[in-house]
Protein backbone atom coordinates (compact mmCIF):
# COMPACT_ATOMS: atom_id res chain seq x y z
CA UNK A 1 0.00 0.00 0.00
CA UNK A 2 1.35 3.41 -0.88
CA UNK A 3 1.95 5.68 2.09
CA UNK A 4 0.46 9.14 1.98
CA UNK A 5 3.04 11.86 2.40
CA UNK A 6 2.07 14.59 4.82
CA UNK A 7 1.46 17.69 2.72
CA UNK A 8 0.81 20.15 5.49
CA UNK A 9 2.37 21.08 8.79
CA UNK A 10 -0.64 20.88 11.05
CA UNK A 11 0.03 19.78 14.61
CA UNK A 12 -0.72 16.13 15.31
CA UNK A 13 -3.34 15.22 17.93
CA UNK A 14 -0.53 14.51 20.37
CA UNK A 15 1.19 17.82 19.68
CA UNK A 16 -2.11 19.65 20.09
CA UNK A 17 -2.69 17.94 23.41
CA UNK A 18 0.79 18.97 24.51
CA UNK A 19 0.13 22.54 23.36
CA UNK A 20 -3.17 22.68 25.26
CA UNK A 21 -1.42 21.46 28.39
CA UNK A 22 1.74 23.58 28.24
CA UNK A 23 0.58 26.68 26.35
CA UNK A 24 3.55 26.45 23.99
CA UNK A 25 5.25 24.15 21.54
CA UNK A 26 8.83 24.35 20.33
CA UNK A 27 11.52 24.86 19.38
CA UNK A 28 10.43 23.98 15.84
CA UNK A 29 12.83 24.33 12.93
CA UNK A 30 11.45 26.67 10.26
CA UNK A 31 14.68 27.42 8.39
CA UNK A 32 18.07 25.70 8.25
CA UNK A 33 20.59 27.83 10.18
CA UNK A 34 22.45 28.79 6.97
CA UNK A 35 19.22 29.89 5.29
CA UNK A 36 18.17 31.89 8.33
CA UNK A 37 21.52 33.62 8.40
CA UNK A 38 21.24 34.53 4.75
CA UNK A 39 17.67 35.77 5.12
CA UNK A 40 18.45 37.86 8.19
CA UNK A 41 21.50 39.33 6.50
CA UNK A 42 19.28 40.48 3.65
CA UNK A 43 16.48 41.73 5.93
CA UNK A 44 18.79 43.75 8.17
CA UNK A 45 20.22 45.55 5.16
CA UNK A 46 16.70 46.40 4.00
CA UNK A 47 15.30 47.64 7.31
CA UNK A 48 16.87 51.13 7.20
CA UNK A 49 14.93 51.81 3.98
CA UNK A 50 11.67 53.00 5.48
CA UNK A 51 10.29 54.56 2.28
CA UNK A 52 7.36 52.09 2.21
CA UNK A 53 7.07 51.33 5.96
CA UNK A 54 3.51 51.86 7.21
CA UNK A 55 4.49 53.85 10.30
CA UNK A 56 6.51 57.08 10.35
CA UNK A 57 10.06 56.72 11.65
CA UNK A 58 9.65 59.18 14.49
CA UNK A 59 7.75 56.74 16.70
CA UNK A 60 10.81 55.98 18.73
CA UNK A 61 10.58 55.16 22.40
CA UNK A 62 13.69 55.08 24.57
CA UNK A 63 14.46 51.47 23.65
CA UNK A 64 11.46 50.23 21.72
CA UNK A 65 11.24 51.21 18.10
CA UNK A 66 7.52 50.75 17.60
CA UNK A 67 7.81 52.31 14.14
CA UNK A 68 9.35 48.95 13.23
CA UNK A 69 6.11 47.12 14.01
CA UNK A 70 4.57 45.40 10.97
CA UNK A 71 7.55 45.55 8.64
CA UNK A 72 6.02 42.44 7.02
CA UNK A 73 3.96 45.02 5.13
CA UNK A 74 7.00 46.42 3.33
CA UNK A 75 9.87 43.88 3.52
CA UNK A 76 9.34 40.90 1.18
CA UNK A 77 11.23 38.31 3.23
CA UNK A 78 9.10 39.21 6.26
CA UNK A 79 5.92 39.05 4.14
CA UNK A 80 7.01 35.57 3.10
CA UNK A 81 7.85 34.62 6.69
CA UNK A 82 4.40 35.32 8.15
CA UNK A 83 2.81 33.26 5.35
CA UNK A 84 5.17 30.32 5.71
CA UNK A 85 3.24 27.03 5.60
CA UNK A 86 5.42 25.59 8.39
CA UNK A 87 4.10 28.37 10.65
CA UNK A 88 0.59 29.05 9.35
CA UNK A 89 -0.53 25.41 9.27
CA UNK A 90 0.50 24.91 12.87
CA UNK A 91 -1.20 28.13 13.98
CA UNK A 92 -4.38 27.25 12.04
CA UNK A 93 -4.51 23.85 13.69
CA UNK A 94 -4.72 25.69 17.04
CA UNK A 95 -6.97 28.65 16.09
CA UNK A 96 -9.10 27.12 13.35
CA UNK A 97 -8.79 27.58 9.59
CA UNK A 98 -9.52 31.32 9.36
CA UNK A 99 -6.52 33.20 10.68
CA UNK A 100 -5.17 36.75 10.60
CA UNK A 101 -1.66 37.96 11.29
CA UNK A 102 -2.29 41.25 13.09
CA UNK A 103 1.15 42.33 14.28
CA UNK A 104 4.83 41.64 13.88
CA UNK A 105 7.62 42.97 16.08
CA UNK A 106 11.35 42.70 16.43
CA UNK A 107 12.72 41.78 19.82
CA UNK A 108 16.41 42.65 19.81
CA UNK A 109 18.68 42.26 22.80
CA UNK A 110 22.10 43.87 22.78
CA UNK A 111 25.08 43.61 25.15
CA UNK A 112 24.18 45.07 28.54
CA UNK A 113 20.41 45.04 27.91
CA UNK A 114 18.21 44.10 30.81
CA UNK A 115 15.95 41.04 30.82
CA UNK A 116 12.19 41.38 30.32
CA UNK A 117 9.81 41.17 33.27
CA UNK A 118 7.51 38.20 33.66
CA UNK A 119 4.30 39.06 31.86
CA UNK A 120 1.11 37.79 30.25
CA UNK A 121 -0.94 39.62 27.62
CA UNK A 122 -4.59 38.94 26.80
CA UNK A 123 -5.82 42.20 25.25
CA UNK A 124 -2.44 43.99 24.86
CA UNK A 125 -3.92 47.01 26.66
CA UNK A 126 -0.99 46.65 29.08
CA UNK A 127 1.05 49.60 27.78
CA UNK A 128 -1.37 51.40 25.40
CA UNK A 129 -4.29 51.23 27.88
CA UNK A 130 -6.72 50.32 25.10
CA UNK A 131 -7.45 46.74 24.10
CA UNK A 132 -5.59 45.98 20.89
CA UNK A 133 -7.46 42.73 20.30
CA UNK A 134 -10.98 41.93 21.39
CA UNK A 135 -12.44 38.45 21.27
CA UNK A 136 -16.22 38.10 20.73
CA UNK A 137 -18.22 38.27 23.89
CA UNK A 138 -19.40 35.19 25.68
CA UNK A 139 -22.11 35.51 28.33
CA UNK A 140 -21.96 39.28 27.99
CA UNK A 141 -18.19 39.43 28.68
CA UNK A 142 -15.37 39.46 26.14
CA UNK A 143 -14.11 35.90 25.87
CA UNK A 144 -10.74 35.13 27.39
CA UNK A 145 -8.41 35.50 24.48
CA UNK A 146 -4.86 36.46 23.80
CA UNK A 147 -2.94 35.83 20.65
CA UNK A 148 -0.81 33.06 19.29
CA UNK A 149 2.72 34.39 19.08
CA UNK A 150 5.26 32.75 16.82
CA UNK A 151 8.66 33.92 18.07
CA UNK A 152 11.39 33.05 15.60
CA UNK A 153 15.07 33.26 16.48
CA UNK A 154 16.67 35.23 13.62
CA UNK A 155 20.01 34.83 15.45
CA UNK A 156 20.99 32.13 17.93
CA UNK A 157 19.14 32.73 21.17
CA UNK A 158 21.25 31.73 24.17
CA UNK A 159 21.29 32.14 27.93
CA UNK A 160 24.09 34.70 27.54
CA UNK A 161 22.35 36.89 24.98
CA UNK A 162 18.98 36.89 26.72
CA UNK A 163 16.81 34.02 25.51
CA UNK A 164 13.11 33.70 26.36
CA UNK A 165 12.00 32.08 29.60
CA UNK A 166 8.67 30.28 29.81
CA UNK A 167 6.50 28.85 32.59
CA UNK A 168 4.65 25.85 31.14
CA UNK A 169 0.94 25.49 31.83
CA UNK A 170 0.36 29.08 33.06
CA UNK A 171 -1.66 30.27 30.06
CA UNK A 172 -5.20 29.81 31.38
CA UNK A 173 -5.12 32.14 34.35
CA UNK A 174 -4.16 35.82 34.19
CA UNK A 175 -2.04 37.02 37.10
CA UNK A 176 -2.11 40.55 35.69
CA UNK A 177 -4.88 43.04 34.99
CA UNK A 178 -3.94 44.89 31.84
CA UNK A 179 -6.43 47.69 32.53
CA UNK A 180 -4.50 48.81 35.64
CA UNK A 181 -2.31 51.91 35.31
CA UNK A 182 1.35 51.32 34.53
CA UNK A 183 3.79 54.20 34.55
CA UNK A 184 6.30 54.76 31.72
CA UNK A 185 9.72 55.72 33.04
CA UNK A 186 12.59 55.51 30.53
CA UNK A 187 15.05 56.22 33.39
CA UNK A 188 14.23 52.80 34.82
CA UNK A 189 15.56 51.02 31.72
CA UNK A 190 18.63 48.92 32.55
CA UNK A 191 18.55 50.40 36.05
CA UNK A 192 16.57 47.96 38.18
CA UNK A 193 17.09 44.53 39.66
CA UNK A 194 14.20 42.28 40.56
CA UNK A 195 14.97 39.20 42.64
CA UNK A 196 18.63 39.68 41.78
CA UNK A 197 18.09 39.89 37.99
CA UNK A 198 18.41 43.10 35.96
CA UNK A 199 15.05 43.34 34.22
CA UNK A 200 12.15 45.58 33.27
CA UNK A 201 9.45 45.98 30.65
CA UNK A 202 10.77 48.44 28.06
CA UNK A 203 10.39 51.41 30.42
CA UNK A 204 7.49 49.99 32.42
CA UNK A 205 7.39 47.80 35.53
CA UNK A 206 5.02 44.94 34.76
CA UNK A 207 4.59 44.22 38.48
CA UNK A 208 2.31 47.29 38.59
CA UNK A 209 -0.32 45.24 36.74
CA UNK A 210 -0.37 42.36 39.22
CA UNK A 211 -3.87 41.53 40.38
CA UNK A 212 -2.39 40.77 43.80
CA UNK A 213 0.45 43.22 44.55
CA UNK A 214 1.93 40.75 47.04
CA UNK A 215 2.04 37.82 44.63
CA UNK A 216 5.35 36.69 43.18
CA UNK A 217 5.85 34.47 40.14
CA UNK A 218 7.13 31.04 41.07
CA UNK A 219 10.35 31.13 39.08
CA UNK A 220 11.17 27.55 39.97
CA UNK A 221 8.60 26.63 37.28
CA UNK A 222 10.53 28.56 34.60
CA UNK A 223 13.03 27.36 32.06
CA UNK A 224 15.24 29.17 29.55
CA UNK A 225 14.25 28.46 25.95
CA UNK A 226 17.54 28.28 24.08
CA UNK A 227 16.99 28.30 20.30
CA UNK A 228 19.15 27.95 17.24
CA UNK A 229 18.69 30.57 14.50
CA UNK A 230 15.82 29.50 12.25
CA UNK A 231 13.86 27.85 15.07
CA UNK A 232 10.59 29.19 16.45
CA UNK A 233 8.39 28.70 19.47
CA UNK A 234 4.60 28.97 19.24
CA UNK A 235 2.85 30.12 22.42
CA UNK A 236 -0.23 31.75 23.85
CA UNK A 237 0.52 35.35 24.82
CA UNK A 238 -1.25 34.56 28.09
CA UNK A 239 1.55 32.15 29.00
CA UNK A 240 3.89 33.53 31.68
CA UNK A 241 7.01 34.56 29.78
CA UNK A 242 10.07 36.73 30.28
CA UNK A 243 13.66 36.91 29.08
CA UNK A 244 17.12 36.88 30.59
CA UNK A 245 19.46 39.90 30.52
CA UNK A 246 22.22 40.05 27.91
CA UNK A 247 25.47 39.20 29.66
CA UNK A 248 27.33 38.07 26.54
CA UNK A 249 30.07 39.53 24.39
CA UNK A 250 30.04 42.80 22.43
CA UNK A 251 29.29 41.38 18.98
CA UNK A 252 26.77 38.82 20.16
CA UNK A 253 23.16 39.92 19.97
CA UNK A 254 19.79 38.25 20.05
CA UNK A 255 17.21 39.04 17.40
CA UNK A 256 13.74 37.60 17.84
CA UNK A 257 10.91 38.24 15.40
CA UNK A 258 7.38 37.79 16.76
CA UNK A 259 4.42 37.28 14.44
CA UNK A 260 1.05 37.41 16.19
CA UNK A 261 -2.05 35.60 14.98
CA UNK A 262 -5.76 35.58 15.90
CA UNK A 263 -8.87 34.03 14.35
CA UNK A 264 -10.89 36.26 12.01
CA UNK A 265 -13.70 36.82 14.55
CA UNK A 266 -11.37 38.87 16.76
CA UNK A 267 -11.56 42.65 16.45
CA UNK A 268 -8.17 44.26 16.03
CA UNK A 269 -7.46 47.77 17.38
CA UNK A 270 -11.17 48.44 18.10
CA UNK A 271 -12.01 52.18 18.04
CA UNK A 272 -8.33 53.07 17.79
CA UNK A 273 -6.69 55.55 15.38
CA UNK A 274 -3.26 55.68 16.99
CA UNK A 275 -1.47 53.20 19.22
CA UNK A 276 0.54 55.02 21.91
CA UNK A 277 2.93 52.94 23.96
CA UNK A 278 6.57 52.63 25.04
CA UNK A 279 7.06 56.37 24.68
CA UNK A 280 6.06 56.41 21.00
CA UNK A 281 2.91 56.50 18.90
CA UNK A 282 1.85 54.94 15.59
CA UNK A 283 -1.09 56.09 13.45
CA UNK A 284 -3.08 53.23 11.93
CA UNK A 285 -4.00 54.98 8.64
CA UNK A 286 -2.04 52.50 6.53
CA UNK A 287 -2.65 49.48 8.73
CA UNK A 288 -4.20 46.23 7.53
CA UNK A 289 -4.27 42.74 9.05
CA UNK A 290 -3.16 39.89 6.77
CA UNK A 291 -5.39 36.89 6.10
CA UNK A 292 -2.87 34.05 6.25
CA UNK A 293 -5.28 31.15 6.14
CA UNK A 294 -8.89 30.43 5.13
CA UNK A 295 -11.55 33.13 4.67
CA UNK A 296 -12.62 36.26 6.47
CA UNK A 297 -16.38 35.86 6.85
CA UNK A 298 -16.71 38.45 9.61
CA UNK A 299 -15.35 41.56 7.92
CA UNK A 300 -14.47 43.11 11.30
CA UNK A 301 -11.01 44.20 10.25
CA UNK A 302 -9.30 46.07 7.44
CA UNK A 303 -7.34 43.51 5.42
CA UNK A 304 -4.10 44.11 3.52
CA UNK A 305 -4.23 41.86 0.46
CA UNK A 306 -0.81 42.98 -0.73
CA UNK A 307 2.20 44.48 0.96
CA UNK A 308 3.26 48.03 0.15
CA UNK A 309 5.94 46.51 -2.05
CA UNK A 310 3.36 44.53 -4.04
CA UNK A 311 3.81 41.13 -2.39
CA UNK A 312 0.49 39.28 -2.66
CA UNK A 313 -0.65 37.53 0.51
CA UNK A 314 -2.18 34.24 -0.65
CA UNK A 315 -4.05 32.66 2.29
CA UNK A 316 -3.42 28.98 2.93
CA UNK A 317 -6.37 26.71 2.42
CA UNK A 318 -6.99 23.21 3.69
Amino acid at each position, binding site marked *: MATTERTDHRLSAQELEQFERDGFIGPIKIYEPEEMEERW*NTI*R*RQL*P*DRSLAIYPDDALGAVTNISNYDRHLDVDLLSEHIMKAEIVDRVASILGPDVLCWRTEFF*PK*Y*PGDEGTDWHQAATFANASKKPQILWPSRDGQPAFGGTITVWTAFTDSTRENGCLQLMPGTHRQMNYDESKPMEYDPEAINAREKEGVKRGFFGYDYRQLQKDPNWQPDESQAFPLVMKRGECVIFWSTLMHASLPHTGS*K*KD*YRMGFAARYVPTQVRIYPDTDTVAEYGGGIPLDNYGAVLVSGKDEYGHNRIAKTSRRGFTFEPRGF
Partner: protein
Amino acid sequence: MPEAVEESTLKESVQRATVEWVAELLEDPEVGAEDNFLDLGGHSMLALQLGNLAKERFGQDYDLRVLFEGTLADAAADLAARAA
Protein backbone atom coordinates in the same frame (compact mmCIF):
# COMPACT_ATOMS: atom_id res chain seq x y z
CA MET B 1 43.57 76.15 1.64
CA PRO B 2 41.60 75.58 -1.62
CA GLU B 3 38.11 74.12 -1.12
CA ALA B 4 38.85 70.86 -2.99
CA VAL B 5 41.84 70.15 -0.78
CA GLU B 6 39.81 70.86 2.35
CA GLU B 7 37.10 68.43 1.24
CA SER B 8 39.58 65.74 0.42
CA THR B 9 41.26 66.20 3.81
CA LEU B 10 37.90 65.96 5.56
CA LYS B 11 37.01 62.82 3.61
CA GLU B 12 40.30 61.20 4.57
CA SER B 13 39.93 62.24 8.15
CA VAL B 14 36.36 60.83 8.41
CA GLN B 15 37.48 57.57 6.79
CA ARG B 16 40.45 57.24 9.13
CA ALA B 17 38.27 57.93 12.17
CA THR B 18 35.56 55.52 10.95
CA VAL B 19 38.00 52.65 10.52
CA GLU B 20 39.57 53.36 13.93
CA TRP B 21 36.21 53.55 15.70
CA VAL B 22 34.89 50.37 14.08
CA ALA B 23 38.11 48.53 14.96
CA GLU B 24 37.73 49.67 18.54
CA LEU B 25 34.00 48.93 18.83
CA LEU B 26 34.38 45.48 17.31
CA GLU B 27 37.68 44.80 19.06
CA ASP B 28 39.15 43.85 15.70
CA PRO B 29 42.46 45.47 14.70
CA GLU B 30 42.22 44.04 11.16
CA VAL B 31 39.34 46.29 10.08
CA GLY B 32 39.91 48.01 6.72
CA ALA B 33 38.13 50.76 4.77
CA GLU B 34 36.79 48.26 2.22
CA ASP B 35 35.03 46.12 4.85
CA ASN B 36 31.28 46.13 5.39
CA PHE B 37 30.09 47.02 8.89
CA LEU B 38 27.55 44.19 9.19
CA ASP B 39 29.89 41.58 7.69
CA LEU B 40 32.44 42.50 10.35
CA GLY B 41 29.86 41.58 13.02
CA GLY B 42 28.39 45.04 13.60
CA HIS B 43 24.79 45.46 14.72
CA SER B 44 22.31 48.29 15.31
CA MET B 45 23.49 49.09 18.83
CA LEU B 46 27.11 49.38 17.72
CA ALA B 47 25.95 51.51 14.76
CA LEU B 48 24.29 53.85 17.25
CA GLN B 49 27.52 54.12 19.26
CA LEU B 50 29.49 54.70 16.07
CA GLY B 51 27.01 57.40 15.02
CA ASN B 52 27.37 59.16 18.39
CA LEU B 53 31.15 59.30 17.96
CA ALA B 54 30.71 60.76 14.47
CA LYS B 55 28.14 63.33 15.62
CA GLU B 56 30.50 64.45 18.38
CA ARG B 57 33.53 64.80 16.07
CA PHE B 58 31.97 65.78 12.72
CA GLY B 59 28.46 66.97 13.63
CA GLN B 60 26.84 64.33 11.36
CA ASP B 61 25.61 60.74 11.72
CA TYR B 62 26.13 57.92 9.23
CA ASP B 63 23.35 57.06 6.81
CA LEU B 64 22.39 53.58 8.04
CA ARG B 65 21.54 52.43 4.52
CA VAL B 66 25.03 53.24 3.29
CA LEU B 67 26.67 51.88 6.44
CA PHE B 68 24.77 48.58 6.22
CA GLU B 69 25.05 48.10 2.46
CA GLY B 70 28.36 49.67 1.47
CA THR B 71 31.95 49.70 2.67
CA LEU B 72 33.21 51.77 5.58
CA ALA B 73 34.82 54.04 2.96
CA ASP B 74 31.39 54.59 1.34
CA ALA B 75 29.78 55.40 4.70
CA ALA B 76 32.61 57.78 5.56
CA ALA B 77 32.49 59.51 2.15
CA ASP B 78 28.72 59.97 2.44
CA LEU B 79 29.09 61.48 5.89
CA ALA B 80 31.99 63.70 4.82
CA ALA B 81 29.92 65.08 1.91
CA ARG B 82 27.23 66.14 4.37
CA ALA B 83 29.72 67.50 6.91
CA ALA B 84 31.58 69.62 4.34
